[in-house]
Protein backbone atom coordinates (compact mmCIF):
# COMPACT_ATOMS: atom_id res chain seq x y z
CA UNK A 1 0.00 0.00 0.00
CA UNK A 2 1.33 3.44 -0.87
CA UNK A 3 2.55 5.50 2.03
CA UNK A 4 0.72 8.78 2.53
CA UNK A 5 2.55 11.67 0.92
CA UNK A 6 2.92 15.11 2.41
CA UNK A 7 -0.24 17.12 2.12
CA UNK A 8 -2.31 14.01 1.57
CA UNK A 9 -5.84 14.16 2.89
CA UNK A 10 -6.32 12.56 6.25
CA UNK A 11 -9.67 12.22 7.91
CA UNK A 12 -9.83 15.47 9.87
CA UNK A 13 -8.71 15.10 13.49
CA UNK A 14 -8.12 11.39 12.88
CA UNK A 15 -7.54 10.62 16.55
CA UNK A 16 -11.03 11.71 17.47
CA UNK A 17 -12.79 10.63 14.27
CA UNK A 18 -14.47 7.48 15.65
CA UNK A 19 -15.56 9.39 18.71
CA UNK A 20 -16.93 12.27 16.63
CA UNK A 21 -18.70 9.79 14.42
CA UNK A 22 -20.33 8.07 17.35
CA UNK A 23 -21.33 11.40 18.90
CA UNK A 24 -23.25 12.20 15.73
CA UNK A 25 -26.76 10.88 16.40
CA UNK A 26 -27.51 10.09 12.77
CA UNK A 27 -24.26 8.18 12.25
CA UNK A 28 -24.62 6.32 15.55
CA UNK A 29 -28.20 5.27 14.77
CA UNK A 30 -27.20 4.18 11.27
CA UNK A 31 -24.22 2.28 12.60
CA UNK A 32 -26.35 0.40 15.11
CA UNK A 33 -28.80 -0.62 12.36
CA UNK A 34 -25.99 -1.66 10.01
CA UNK A 35 -24.16 -3.66 12.70
CA UNK A 36 -27.37 -5.51 13.58
CA UNK A 37 -27.97 -6.27 9.89
CA UNK A 38 -24.35 -7.35 9.41
CA UNK A 39 -24.58 -9.68 12.41
CA UNK A 40 -27.85 -11.04 11.01
CA UNK A 41 -26.12 -11.71 7.71
CA UNK A 42 -23.15 -13.42 9.39
CA UNK A 43 -24.83 -15.32 12.21
CA UNK A 44 -28.50 -15.40 11.21
CA UNK A 45 -28.31 -18.49 9.01
CA UNK A 46 -26.86 -20.41 11.99
CA UNK A 47 -29.51 -19.13 14.40
CA UNK A 48 -32.53 -19.52 12.12
CA UNK A 49 -32.32 -23.17 11.30
CA UNK A 50 -35.32 -23.51 8.96
CA UNK A 51 -34.40 -24.13 5.34
CA UNK A 52 -35.20 -20.99 3.29
CA UNK A 53 -35.74 -22.97 0.08
CA UNK A 54 -37.54 -26.05 1.31
CA UNK A 55 -41.21 -25.98 0.36
CA UNK A 56 -44.06 -27.27 2.54
CA UNK A 57 -47.35 -27.09 0.58
CA UNK A 58 -49.43 -27.89 3.64
CA UNK A 59 -47.99 -24.87 5.45
CA UNK A 60 -48.64 -22.32 2.69
CA UNK A 61 -49.56 -18.69 3.50
CA UNK A 62 -49.65 -19.25 7.27
CA UNK A 63 -49.81 -15.97 9.23
CA UNK A 64 -47.08 -15.16 11.77
CA UNK A 65 -47.08 -17.59 14.70
CA UNK A 66 -44.65 -18.94 17.27
CA UNK A 67 -43.61 -21.65 14.84
CA UNK A 68 -43.16 -19.28 11.90
CA UNK A 69 -42.45 -15.82 13.38
CA UNK A 70 -42.90 -14.01 10.03
CA UNK A 71 -45.37 -16.59 8.66
CA UNK A 72 -44.94 -18.65 5.49
CA UNK A 73 -45.12 -17.87 1.78
CA UNK A 74 -47.17 -19.43 -1.00
CA UNK A 75 -44.93 -22.49 -1.09
CA UNK A 76 -44.93 -22.91 2.69
CA UNK A 77 -41.37 -21.61 3.10
CA UNK A 78 -40.48 -19.86 6.34
CA UNK A 79 -40.38 -16.11 5.63
CA UNK A 80 -38.13 -15.28 8.61
CA UNK A 81 -35.54 -17.72 7.33
CA UNK A 82 -35.80 -16.28 3.81
CA UNK A 83 -35.50 -12.70 5.06
CA UNK A 84 -32.45 -13.64 7.16
CA UNK A 85 -30.76 -15.46 4.28
CA UNK A 86 -31.68 -12.57 1.98
CA UNK A 87 -29.68 -10.18 4.17
CA UNK A 88 -26.41 -11.49 2.76
CA UNK A 89 -27.68 -11.14 -0.79
CA UNK A 90 -28.75 -7.52 -0.24
CA UNK A 91 -25.48 -6.55 1.44
CA UNK A 92 -23.48 -8.14 -1.37
CA UNK A 93 -25.67 -6.35 -3.95
CA UNK A 94 -24.99 -3.01 -2.24
CA UNK A 95 -21.24 -3.60 -2.00
CA UNK A 96 -20.66 -4.96 -5.50
CA UNK A 97 -22.97 -2.51 -7.29
CA UNK A 98 -21.31 0.47 -5.63
CA UNK A 99 -17.86 -0.96 -6.42
CA UNK A 100 -18.86 -1.34 -10.08
CA UNK A 101 -19.98 2.32 -10.10
CA UNK A 102 -17.01 3.60 -8.15
CA UNK A 103 -14.05 2.37 -10.17
CA UNK A 104 -15.01 3.85 -13.56
CA UNK A 105 -16.77 6.77 -11.86
CA UNK A 106 -13.62 7.78 -9.99
CA UNK A 107 -11.44 7.32 -13.07
CA UNK A 108 -13.73 9.40 -15.31
CA UNK A 109 -14.17 12.10 -12.67
CA UNK A 110 -10.41 12.32 -12.07
CA UNK A 111 -9.53 12.56 -15.77
CA UNK A 112 -12.33 15.00 -16.65
CA UNK A 113 -11.68 17.31 -13.73
CA UNK A 114 -7.88 17.25 -13.94
CA UNK A 115 -7.32 17.56 -17.68
CA UNK A 116 -10.37 19.71 -18.48
CA UNK A 117 -10.77 20.84 -22.11
CA UNK A 118 -11.89 18.28 -24.66
CA UNK A 119 -11.26 15.35 -22.29
CA UNK A 120 -13.72 16.89 -19.85
CA UNK A 121 -16.25 17.73 -22.58
CA UNK A 122 -16.21 14.25 -24.13
CA UNK A 123 -16.37 12.36 -20.84
CA UNK A 124 -19.03 14.57 -19.29
CA UNK A 125 -21.25 14.50 -22.40
CA UNK A 126 -21.02 10.69 -22.24
CA UNK A 127 -22.11 10.87 -18.62
CA UNK A 128 -24.96 13.22 -19.61
CA UNK A 129 -26.18 10.59 -22.05
CA UNK A 130 -26.38 8.02 -19.25
CA UNK A 131 -28.06 10.56 -16.99
CA UNK A 132 -30.69 11.25 -19.65
CA UNK A 133 -32.42 7.99 -18.75
CA UNK A 134 -34.51 7.51 -15.60
CA UNK A 135 -32.22 5.27 -13.48
CA UNK A 136 -34.62 2.37 -13.06
CA UNK A 137 -35.43 2.36 -16.75
CA UNK A 138 -31.79 2.18 -17.78
CA UNK A 139 -31.23 -0.59 -15.25
CA UNK A 140 -34.24 -2.45 -16.67
CA UNK A 141 -32.88 -2.07 -20.20
CA UNK A 142 -29.39 -3.27 -19.28
CA UNK A 143 -30.77 -6.26 -17.37
CA UNK A 144 -33.05 -7.09 -20.29
CA UNK A 145 -30.00 -7.22 -22.56
CA UNK A 146 -27.76 -9.14 -20.17
CA UNK A 147 -30.54 -11.47 -19.03
CA UNK A 148 -32.32 -11.59 -15.67
CA UNK A 149 -30.00 -12.77 -12.89
CA UNK A 150 -28.49 -11.49 -9.67
CA UNK A 151 -24.98 -10.74 -11.04
CA UNK A 152 -26.52 -8.90 -14.01
CA UNK A 153 -28.66 -6.86 -11.64
CA UNK A 154 -25.52 -5.73 -9.84
CA UNK A 155 -23.83 -4.85 -13.13
CA UNK A 156 -26.91 -2.91 -14.31
CA UNK A 157 -27.26 -0.96 -11.07
CA UNK A 158 -23.51 -0.35 -11.05
CA UNK A 159 -23.46 1.06 -14.59
CA UNK A 160 -26.46 3.32 -13.95
CA UNK A 161 -24.73 5.16 -11.11
CA UNK A 162 -21.30 5.65 -12.75
CA UNK A 163 -22.17 9.24 -13.87
CA UNK A 164 -23.21 10.24 -10.36
CA UNK A 165 -19.80 9.36 -8.91
CA UNK A 166 -17.97 10.80 -11.92
CA UNK A 167 -19.70 14.16 -11.41
CA UNK A 168 -18.98 14.27 -7.68
CA UNK A 169 -15.29 13.42 -8.14
CA UNK A 170 -14.97 15.85 -11.05
CA UNK A 171 -16.31 18.80 -9.08
CA UNK A 172 -13.97 17.92 -6.22
CA UNK A 173 -10.97 17.64 -8.56
CA UNK A 174 -11.82 21.00 -10.19
CA UNK A 175 -11.30 22.75 -6.87
CA UNK A 176 -8.34 20.60 -5.79
CA UNK A 177 -6.28 21.14 -8.95
CA UNK A 178 -6.16 24.88 -8.19
CA UNK A 179 -4.85 24.31 -4.67
CA UNK A 180 -1.26 25.29 -3.92
CA UNK A 181 -0.04 21.87 -2.83
CA UNK A 182 -1.21 20.30 -6.10
CA UNK A 183 0.30 23.09 -8.19
CA UNK A 184 3.56 22.79 -6.24
CA UNK A 185 3.88 19.07 -7.04
CA UNK A 186 3.35 19.93 -10.70
CA UNK A 187 6.04 22.63 -10.64
CA UNK A 188 8.43 20.21 -8.94
CA UNK A 189 8.08 17.86 -11.89
CA UNK A 190 5.52 15.41 -10.49
CA UNK A 191 3.86 13.41 -13.27
CA UNK A 192 0.12 13.65 -13.96
CA UNK A 193 -0.34 10.09 -12.67
CA UNK A 194 1.50 10.91 -9.44
CA UNK A 195 -0.48 14.11 -8.89
CA UNK A 196 -3.78 12.33 -9.56
CA UNK A 197 -3.15 9.18 -7.58
CA UNK A 198 -1.00 10.44 -4.70
CA UNK A 199 -2.41 13.89 -4.13
CA UNK A 200 -5.80 14.50 -5.69
CA UNK A 201 -7.40 11.07 -5.18
CA UNK A 202 -6.56 10.79 -1.46
CA UNK A 203 -7.94 14.29 -0.94
CA UNK A 204 -11.19 13.29 -2.63
CA UNK A 205 -11.76 10.37 -0.28
CA UNK A 206 -14.20 12.15 2.01
CA UNK A 207 -16.92 12.77 -0.60
CA UNK A 208 -16.27 9.33 -2.12
CA UNK A 209 -16.84 7.62 1.22
CA UNK A 210 -19.95 9.66 1.95
CA UNK A 211 -21.56 9.14 -1.43
CA UNK A 212 -20.60 5.48 -1.59
CA UNK A 213 -22.34 4.91 1.74
CA UNK A 214 -25.47 6.73 0.60
CA UNK A 215 -25.14 4.95 -2.76
CA UNK A 216 -25.32 1.54 -1.04
CA UNK A 217 -28.87 2.34 0.05
CA UNK A 218 -29.83 3.47 -3.43
CA UNK A 219 -28.26 0.36 -4.97
CA UNK A 220 -30.18 -1.93 -2.61
CA UNK A 221 -33.44 -0.12 -3.52
CA UNK A 222 -32.79 -0.31 -7.26
CA UNK A 223 -31.77 -3.96 -7.13
CA UNK A 224 -34.88 -4.76 -5.09
CA UNK A 225 -36.97 -2.93 -7.70
CA UNK A 226 -35.42 -5.08 -10.45
CA UNK A 227 -36.06 -8.18 -8.33
CA UNK A 228 -39.65 -7.01 -7.88
CA UNK A 229 -40.06 -6.76 -11.66
CA UNK A 230 -38.69 -10.30 -12.05
CA UNK A 231 -35.37 -9.17 -13.51
CA UNK A 232 -33.17 -9.81 -10.49
CA UNK A 233 -32.49 -12.94 -8.49
CA UNK A 234 -34.33 -15.94 -9.86
CA UNK A 235 -36.36 -18.42 -7.81
CA UNK A 236 -35.80 -19.95 -5.34
CA UNK A 237 -33.15 -17.42 -4.19
CA UNK A 238 -34.41 -15.52 -1.16
CA UNK A 239 -33.86 -12.00 -2.51
CA UNK A 240 -36.04 -9.37 -0.82
CA UNK A 241 -37.31 -7.67 -4.00
CA UNK A 242 -38.31 -10.99 -5.56
CA UNK A 243 -40.02 -12.00 -2.30
CA UNK A 244 -42.01 -8.76 -2.41
CA UNK A 245 -43.01 -9.52 -5.97
CA UNK A 246 -44.40 -12.86 -4.88
CA UNK A 247 -46.15 -11.22 -1.94
CA UNK A 248 -47.93 -8.85 -4.31
CA UNK A 249 -50.09 -11.69 -5.61
CA UNK A 250 -51.31 -12.53 -2.12
CA UNK A 251 -51.64 -9.01 -0.71
CA UNK A 252 -55.38 -9.45 -0.09
CA UNK A 253 -55.21 -12.72 1.83
CA UNK A 254 -51.64 -12.82 3.21
CA UNK A 255 -50.11 -9.33 3.53
CA UNK A 256 -47.28 -10.66 5.69
CA UNK A 257 -45.66 -12.26 2.63
CA UNK A 258 -44.85 -8.77 1.28
CA UNK A 259 -44.68 -6.86 4.58
CA UNK A 260 -41.54 -8.42 6.07
CA UNK A 261 -39.15 -8.37 3.08
CA UNK A 262 -40.21 -4.76 2.42
CA UNK A 263 -39.60 -3.78 6.04
CA UNK A 264 -36.15 -5.41 5.80
CA UNK A 265 -35.31 -3.32 2.70
CA UNK A 266 -36.52 -0.16 4.46
CA UNK A 267 -34.39 -0.91 7.52
CA UNK A 268 -31.21 -1.60 5.54
CA UNK A 269 -31.60 1.49 3.33
CA UNK A 270 -32.45 3.61 6.37
CA UNK A 271 -29.26 2.35 8.04
CA UNK A 272 -27.11 3.34 5.05
CA UNK A 273 -28.84 6.73 4.74
CA UNK A 274 -28.53 7.57 8.44
CA UNK A 275 -24.89 6.51 8.51
CA UNK A 276 -24.14 8.33 5.26
CA UNK A 277 -25.78 11.56 6.50
CA UNK A 278 -23.79 11.35 9.72
CA UNK A 279 -20.55 10.63 7.86
CA UNK A 280 -21.15 13.66 5.66
CA UNK A 281 -21.66 15.89 8.70
CA UNK A 282 -18.45 14.64 10.33
CA UNK A 283 -16.20 14.46 7.25
CA UNK A 284 -17.40 17.57 5.48
CA UNK A 285 -19.15 20.00 7.83
CA UNK A 286 -19.54 22.50 4.96
CA UNK A 287 -22.17 20.20 3.42
CA UNK A 288 -23.96 19.77 6.70
CA UNK A 289 -27.70 20.35 6.70
CA UNK A 290 -28.35 22.45 9.81
Amino acid sequence: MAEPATGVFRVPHSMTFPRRLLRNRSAAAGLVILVVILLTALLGPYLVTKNPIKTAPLQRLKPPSTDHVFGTDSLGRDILSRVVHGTRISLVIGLISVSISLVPGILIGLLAGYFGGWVDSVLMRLMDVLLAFPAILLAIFITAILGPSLPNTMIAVGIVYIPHYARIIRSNVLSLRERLFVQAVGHLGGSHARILLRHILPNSLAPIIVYATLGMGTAVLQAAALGFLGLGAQPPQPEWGAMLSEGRQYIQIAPHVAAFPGAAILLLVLGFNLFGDGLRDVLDPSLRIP
Partner: protein
Amino acid sequence: MQLRYVANRLGQLLLVMFGVSILVFWMLRMIPGDPAQLLLGEYASPQALAELREKLGLNRSYAAQYGIYLTKVLQGDFGRSVRTGAPIFQEIWIRIPATVELAVAAMLIATLFGVAAGVISAVKHRSLWDYTAMFLALIGVSMPIFWLGLMLIYLFSVRMSLFPMMGRLSMGQDLPVVTGLMIVDALLSGNGTLLTDSIHHLILPAFTLSTIPMAIIARITRSSMLEVMHMDYIRTARAKGMGEATVILRHALRNACLPVITVIGLNLGLLLGGAVLTETIFSWPGLGRYVVDSLMARDYAAVQGCILMFAGMMAFINLGVDLIIALLDPRVRIHG
Protein backbone atom coordinates in the same frame (compact mmCIF):
# COMPACT_ATOMS: atom_id res chain seq x y z
CA MET B 1 -33.66 36.01 -21.24
CA GLN B 2 -30.51 35.80 -23.28
CA LEU B 3 -31.18 34.01 -26.54
CA ARG B 4 -27.63 32.66 -26.53
CA TYR B 5 -28.25 30.82 -23.29
CA VAL B 6 -31.40 29.16 -24.66
CA ALA B 7 -29.63 28.23 -27.91
CA ASN B 8 -26.71 26.80 -25.96
CA ARG B 9 -28.98 24.63 -23.80
CA LEU B 10 -30.93 23.46 -26.86
CA GLY B 11 -27.67 22.52 -28.57
CA GLN B 12 -26.60 20.50 -25.53
CA LEU B 13 -30.00 18.79 -25.46
CA LEU B 14 -29.74 17.76 -29.11
CA LEU B 15 -26.23 16.44 -28.52
CA VAL B 16 -27.37 14.37 -25.56
CA MET B 17 -30.39 13.02 -27.45
CA PHE B 18 -28.08 12.05 -30.33
CA GLY B 19 -25.90 10.20 -27.82
CA VAL B 20 -28.99 8.54 -26.34
CA SER B 21 -30.06 7.30 -29.77
CA ILE B 22 -26.59 5.80 -30.41
CA LEU B 23 -26.56 4.12 -27.00
CA VAL B 24 -30.04 2.66 -27.41
CA PHE B 25 -29.20 1.43 -30.93
CA TRP B 26 -25.97 -0.16 -29.71
CA MET B 27 -27.64 -1.77 -26.72
CA LEU B 28 -30.39 -3.25 -28.88
CA ARG B 29 -27.77 -4.82 -31.11
CA MET B 30 -26.23 -6.38 -28.01
CA ILE B 31 -29.37 -8.41 -27.29
CA PRO B 32 -28.49 -11.99 -28.07
CA GLY B 33 -30.33 -13.57 -30.98
CA ASP B 34 -31.51 -12.54 -34.40
CA PRO B 35 -34.01 -9.63 -34.39
CA ALA B 36 -35.74 -11.09 -37.44
CA GLN B 37 -36.19 -14.41 -35.67
CA LEU B 38 -37.49 -12.56 -32.64
CA LEU B 39 -40.09 -10.76 -34.73
CA LEU B 40 -41.24 -13.73 -36.81
CA GLY B 41 -41.02 -16.39 -34.12
CA GLU B 42 -39.30 -19.71 -33.76
CA TYR B 43 -40.92 -21.45 -36.72
CA ALA B 44 -40.34 -18.82 -39.41
CA SER B 45 -39.04 -20.10 -42.74
CA PRO B 46 -35.47 -19.21 -43.77
CA GLN B 47 -36.90 -17.32 -46.76
CA ALA B 48 -39.20 -15.18 -44.59
CA LEU B 49 -36.28 -14.50 -42.24
CA ALA B 50 -34.04 -13.45 -45.11
CA GLU B 51 -36.75 -11.16 -46.49
CA LEU B 52 -37.32 -9.50 -43.17
CA ARG B 53 -33.57 -9.06 -42.59
CA GLU B 54 -33.35 -7.34 -45.95
CA LYS B 55 -36.42 -5.20 -45.20
CA LEU B 56 -35.06 -4.14 -41.80
CA GLY B 57 -31.62 -3.51 -43.25
CA LEU B 58 -30.00 -6.06 -40.94
CA ASN B 59 -27.67 -7.22 -43.73
CA ARG B 60 -26.09 -3.78 -43.99
CA SER B 61 -23.26 -2.24 -42.00
CA TYR B 62 -23.92 -0.95 -38.48
CA ALA B 63 -23.48 2.65 -39.67
CA ALA B 64 -26.09 2.15 -42.39
CA GLN B 65 -28.40 0.41 -39.93
CA TYR B 66 -28.02 3.30 -37.52
CA GLY B 67 -28.84 5.74 -40.33
CA ILE B 68 -32.06 3.86 -41.12
CA TYR B 69 -32.93 3.62 -37.45
CA LEU B 70 -32.35 7.34 -36.79
CA THR B 71 -34.35 8.41 -39.83
CA LYS B 72 -37.28 6.26 -38.72
CA VAL B 73 -37.12 7.46 -35.10
CA LEU B 74 -37.04 11.09 -36.22
CA GLN B 75 -40.21 10.40 -38.20
CA GLY B 76 -41.82 8.91 -35.10
CA ASP B 77 -41.57 5.40 -36.51
CA PHE B 78 -40.48 3.10 -33.66
CA GLY B 79 -41.57 -0.01 -35.56
CA ARG B 80 -44.44 -2.33 -34.74
CA SER B 81 -45.20 -4.13 -31.53
CA VAL B 82 -44.50 -7.87 -31.59
CA ARG B 83 -47.45 -8.40 -29.28
CA THR B 84 -50.19 -6.35 -30.89
CA GLY B 85 -48.86 -5.57 -34.34
CA ALA B 86 -49.81 -1.91 -33.82
CA PRO B 87 -47.33 0.92 -34.47
CA ILE B 88 -45.34 1.46 -31.27
CA PHE B 89 -45.54 5.24 -31.51
CA GLN B 90 -49.33 4.98 -31.40
CA GLU B 91 -49.19 2.58 -28.43
CA ILE B 92 -46.94 5.00 -26.58
CA TRP B 93 -48.94 8.08 -27.51
CA ILE B 94 -52.20 6.75 -26.05
CA ARG B 95 -50.47 5.89 -22.78
CA ILE B 96 -48.64 9.16 -22.18
CA PRO B 97 -51.64 11.03 -20.68
CA ALA B 98 -52.06 8.40 -17.95
CA THR B 99 -48.40 8.75 -16.91
CA VAL B 100 -48.50 12.53 -17.13
CA GLU B 101 -51.66 12.68 -15.00
CA LEU B 102 -50.09 10.43 -12.38
CA ALA B 103 -46.78 12.32 -12.35
CA VAL B 104 -48.41 15.75 -12.14
CA ALA B 105 -50.75 14.66 -9.32
CA ALA B 106 -47.80 13.14 -7.46
CA MET B 107 -45.75 16.29 -7.89
CA LEU B 108 -48.63 18.45 -6.63
CA ILE B 109 -48.94 16.30 -3.51
CA ALA B 110 -45.16 16.24 -3.02
CA THR B 111 -44.81 20.01 -3.42
CA LEU B 112 -47.75 20.88 -1.20
CA PHE B 113 -46.78 18.64 1.70
CA GLY B 114 -43.02 18.84 1.15
CA VAL B 115 -42.89 22.64 1.18
CA ALA B 116 -45.28 22.83 4.15
CA ALA B 117 -43.20 20.31 6.14
CA GLY B 118 -39.96 22.09 5.22
CA VAL B 119 -41.28 25.51 6.23
CA ILE B 120 -42.67 24.24 9.53
CA SER B 121 -39.38 22.42 10.26
CA ALA B 122 -37.37 25.56 9.61
CA VAL B 123 -39.66 27.87 11.57
CA LYS B 124 -39.81 25.44 14.48
CA HIS B 125 -36.12 24.54 14.16
CA ARG B 126 -34.93 21.82 16.55
CA SER B 127 -38.41 21.23 17.92
CA LEU B 128 -40.36 17.98 18.00
CA TRP B 129 -42.05 19.11 14.74
CA ASP B 130 -38.68 19.51 13.09
CA TYR B 131 -37.30 16.16 14.25
CA THR B 132 -40.51 14.30 13.34
CA ALA B 133 -40.73 15.87 9.88
CA MET B 134 -37.07 15.19 9.10
CA PHE B 135 -37.30 11.61 10.38
CA LEU B 136 -40.34 11.04 8.17
CA ALA B 137 -38.43 12.57 5.26
CA LEU B 138 -35.58 10.14 5.87
CA ILE B 139 -38.05 7.24 5.94
CA GLY B 140 -39.53 8.61 2.72
CA VAL B 141 -36.24 8.42 0.82
CA SER B 142 -35.41 5.01 2.28
CA MET B 143 -38.68 3.29 1.51
CA PRO B 144 -39.15 1.06 -1.54
CA ILE B 145 -42.17 2.68 -3.20
CA PHE B 146 -43.37 -0.64 -4.56
CA TRP B 147 -43.63 -1.87 -0.98
CA LEU B 148 -45.38 1.29 0.20
CA GLY B 149 -47.86 0.92 -2.66
CA LEU B 150 -48.65 -2.66 -1.64
CA MET B 151 -49.06 -1.72 2.01
CA LEU B 152 -51.37 1.19 1.09
CA ILE B 153 -53.44 -1.15 -1.08
CA TYR B 154 -53.75 -3.59 1.81
CA LEU B 155 -54.63 -0.90 4.35
CA PHE B 156 -56.86 1.45 2.37
CA SER B 157 -58.29 -0.85 -0.29
CA VAL B 158 -58.47 -4.32 1.23
CA ARG B 159 -59.05 -3.51 4.91
CA MET B 160 -60.84 -0.17 4.85
CA SER B 161 -62.30 -0.23 1.32
CA LEU B 162 -61.65 3.52 1.07
CA PHE B 163 -59.88 3.58 -2.28
CA PRO B 164 -59.92 1.31 -5.35
CA MET B 165 -57.00 -1.07 -5.84
CA MET B 166 -56.29 -0.48 -9.48
CA GLY B 167 -57.12 1.23 -12.74
CA ARG B 168 -58.22 4.77 -13.58
CA LEU B 169 -61.99 4.33 -13.46
CA SER B 170 -64.39 1.85 -11.84
CA MET B 171 -65.58 -1.15 -13.84
CA GLY B 172 -68.41 -0.28 -16.19
CA GLN B 173 -67.65 3.44 -16.16
CA ASP B 174 -66.74 4.95 -19.49
CA LEU B 175 -65.51 8.38 -20.40
CA PRO B 176 -65.15 9.85 -23.89
CA VAL B 177 -61.43 10.50 -24.48
CA VAL B 178 -60.60 14.11 -25.30
CA THR B 179 -57.22 14.78 -23.71
CA GLY B 180 -56.57 11.36 -22.20
CA LEU B 181 -56.28 12.99 -18.79
CA MET B 182 -59.20 11.45 -16.90
CA ILE B 183 -59.78 14.35 -14.55
CA VAL B 184 -59.73 16.90 -17.36
CA ASP B 185 -61.96 14.72 -19.53
CA ALA B 186 -64.40 14.21 -16.64
CA LEU B 187 -64.48 17.98 -16.11
CA LEU B 188 -65.10 18.54 -19.81
CA SER B 189 -67.92 16.02 -19.83
CA GLY B 190 -69.48 17.78 -16.84
CA ASN B 191 -70.08 14.44 -15.13
CA GLY B 192 -69.47 14.85 -11.39
CA THR B 193 -69.64 11.10 -10.66
CA LEU B 194 -66.88 10.35 -13.15
CA LEU B 195 -64.79 13.21 -11.81
CA THR B 196 -65.03 11.88 -8.25
CA ASP B 197 -64.35 8.36 -9.48
CA SER B 198 -61.21 9.37 -11.38
CA ILE B 199 -59.84 11.40 -8.44
CA HIS B 200 -60.64 8.49 -6.16
CA HIS B 201 -58.57 6.16 -8.37
CA LEU B 202 -55.70 8.64 -8.58
CA ILE B 203 -55.12 9.27 -4.86
CA LEU B 204 -53.30 6.06 -3.80
CA PRO B 205 -50.92 5.76 -6.78
CA ALA B 206 -50.19 9.50 -6.75
CA PHE B 207 -49.45 9.47 -3.02
CA THR B 208 -47.20 6.41 -3.44
CA LEU B 209 -45.27 8.08 -6.23
CA SER B 210 -45.02 11.36 -4.31
CA THR B 211 -43.21 10.05 -1.22
CA ILE B 212 -39.59 10.29 -2.43
CA PRO B 213 -39.89 13.75 -4.04
CA MET B 214 -41.92 14.91 -1.02
CA ALA B 215 -39.11 13.87 1.31
CA ILE B 216 -36.46 15.54 -0.85
CA ILE B 217 -38.51 18.75 -1.22
CA ALA B 218 -39.09 18.89 2.54
CA ARG B 219 -35.34 18.58 3.25
CA ILE B 220 -34.35 21.17 0.67
CA THR B 221 -37.08 23.63 1.71
CA ARG B 222 -36.01 23.33 5.32
CA SER B 223 -32.30 23.91 4.68
CA SER B 224 -33.00 26.71 2.21
CA MET B 225 -35.41 28.41 4.63
CA LEU B 226 -32.93 28.11 7.51
CA GLU B 227 -30.34 29.86 5.40
CA VAL B 228 -32.69 32.69 4.44
CA MET B 229 -34.19 33.15 7.92
CA HIS B 230 -30.86 34.46 9.19
CA MET B 231 -30.58 37.16 6.54
CA ASP B 232 -30.63 40.84 7.40
CA TYR B 233 -33.73 41.62 5.36
CA ILE B 234 -35.74 39.12 7.41
CA ARG B 235 -34.57 40.82 10.60
CA THR B 236 -35.47 44.17 9.04
CA ALA B 237 -38.92 42.93 8.07
CA ARG B 238 -39.52 41.77 11.64
CA ALA B 239 -38.13 45.03 13.04
CA LYS B 240 -40.60 46.94 10.90
CA GLY B 241 -43.34 45.11 12.74
CA MET B 242 -44.51 42.77 9.99
CA GLY B 243 -46.56 39.78 11.04
CA GLU B 244 -44.65 36.49 11.32
CA ALA B 245 -46.78 34.85 8.62
CA THR B 246 -45.99 37.66 6.18
CA VAL B 247 -42.28 37.48 7.00
CA ILE B 248 -42.20 33.72 6.45
CA LEU B 249 -44.41 33.46 3.40
CA ARG B 250 -43.71 36.69 1.56
CA HIS B 251 -40.06 37.29 2.39
CA ALA B 252 -38.42 34.04 3.50
CA LEU B 253 -40.20 31.43 1.37
CA ARG B 254 -40.11 33.54 -1.77
CA ASN B 255 -36.34 33.89 -1.49
CA ALA B 256 -35.83 30.28 -0.44
CA CYS B 257 -37.81 28.89 -3.36
CA LEU B 258 -35.07 28.77 -6.03
CA PRO B 259 -33.38 25.55 -4.86
CA VAL B 260 -36.85 24.15 -4.18
CA ILE B 261 -37.95 24.83 -7.78
CA THR B 262 -34.75 23.18 -9.03
CA VAL B 263 -35.44 20.10 -6.94
CA ILE B 264 -39.09 19.99 -8.02
CA GLY B 265 -38.00 20.11 -11.67
CA LEU B 266 -35.30 17.49 -11.27
CA ASN B 267 -37.73 15.22 -9.48
CA LEU B 268 -40.19 15.32 -12.35
CA GLY B 269 -37.65 13.15 -14.15
CA LEU B 270 -37.42 10.92 -11.09
CA LEU B 271 -41.20 10.59 -11.13
CA LEU B 272 -41.12 9.22 -14.67
CA GLY B 273 -38.81 6.46 -13.47
CA GLY B 274 -40.86 5.89 -10.34
CA ALA B 275 -43.95 5.60 -12.52
CA VAL B 276 -42.61 2.29 -13.86
CA LEU B 277 -43.03 0.69 -10.43
CA THR B 278 -46.13 2.56 -9.29
CA GLU B 279 -48.01 1.82 -12.50
CA THR B 280 -47.10 -1.85 -12.23
CA ILE B 281 -48.45 -2.08 -8.68
CA PHE B 282 -51.68 -0.18 -9.33
CA SER B 283 -52.24 -1.58 -12.84
CA TRP B 284 -52.20 2.01 -14.07
CA PRO B 285 -52.36 1.91 -17.88
CA GLY B 286 -49.45 4.31 -18.50
CA LEU B 287 -46.07 4.22 -20.16
CA GLY B 288 -44.31 2.69 -17.15
CA ARG B 289 -46.50 -0.36 -17.07
CA TYR B 290 -46.24 -0.65 -20.84
CA VAL B 291 -42.44 -0.88 -20.57
CA VAL B 292 -42.63 -3.65 -18.02
CA ASP B 293 -45.28 -5.57 -19.96
CA SER B 294 -43.25 -5.19 -23.18
CA LEU B 295 -40.16 -6.38 -21.41
CA MET B 296 -41.91 -9.48 -20.10
CA ALA B 297 -43.13 -10.21 -23.65
CA ARG B 298 -39.62 -9.57 -25.07
CA ASP B 299 -41.08 -6.82 -27.23
CA TYR B 300 -37.74 -5.00 -27.46
CA ALA B 301 -38.81 -2.52 -30.12
CA ALA B 302 -41.54 -1.32 -27.76
CA VAL B 303 -39.04 -1.13 -24.88
CA GLN B 304 -36.71 0.89 -27.08
CA GLY B 305 -39.51 3.28 -28.08
CA CYS B 306 -40.51 3.85 -24.48
CA ILE B 307 -36.93 4.41 -23.38
CA LEU B 308 -36.36 6.99 -26.10
CA MET B 309 -39.64 8.66 -25.17
CA PHE B 310 -38.73 8.73 -21.46
CA ALA B 311 -35.25 10.10 -22.19
CA GLY B 312 -36.76 12.76 -24.47
CA MET B 313 -39.31 13.75 -21.85
CA MET B 314 -36.60 13.95 -19.18
CA ALA B 315 -34.37 16.06 -21.42
CA PHE B 316 -37.19 18.52 -22.12
CA ILE B 317 -38.19 18.68 -18.45
CA ASN B 318 -34.57 19.43 -17.50
CA LEU B 319 -34.37 22.08 -20.21
CA GLY B 320 -37.63 23.64 -18.99
CA VAL B 321 -36.39 23.69 -15.40
CA ASP B 322 -33.09 25.29 -16.44
CA LEU B 323 -34.92 27.98 -18.40
CA ILE B 324 -37.32 28.73 -15.53
CA ILE B 325 -34.38 29.01 -13.13
CA ALA B 326 -32.50 31.24 -15.54
CA LEU B 327 -35.61 33.39 -15.78
CA LEU B 328 -35.86 33.66 -12.00
CA ASP B 329 -32.17 34.03 -11.24
CA PRO B 330 -30.08 36.27 -13.52
CA ARG B 331 -26.83 34.83 -12.06
CA VAL B 332 -27.54 31.49 -13.75
CA ARG B 333 -27.79 32.87 -17.28
CA ILE B 334 -24.72 35.04 -16.76
CA HIS B 335 -22.48 32.31 -15.40
CA GLY B 336 -24.29 29.28 -16.82
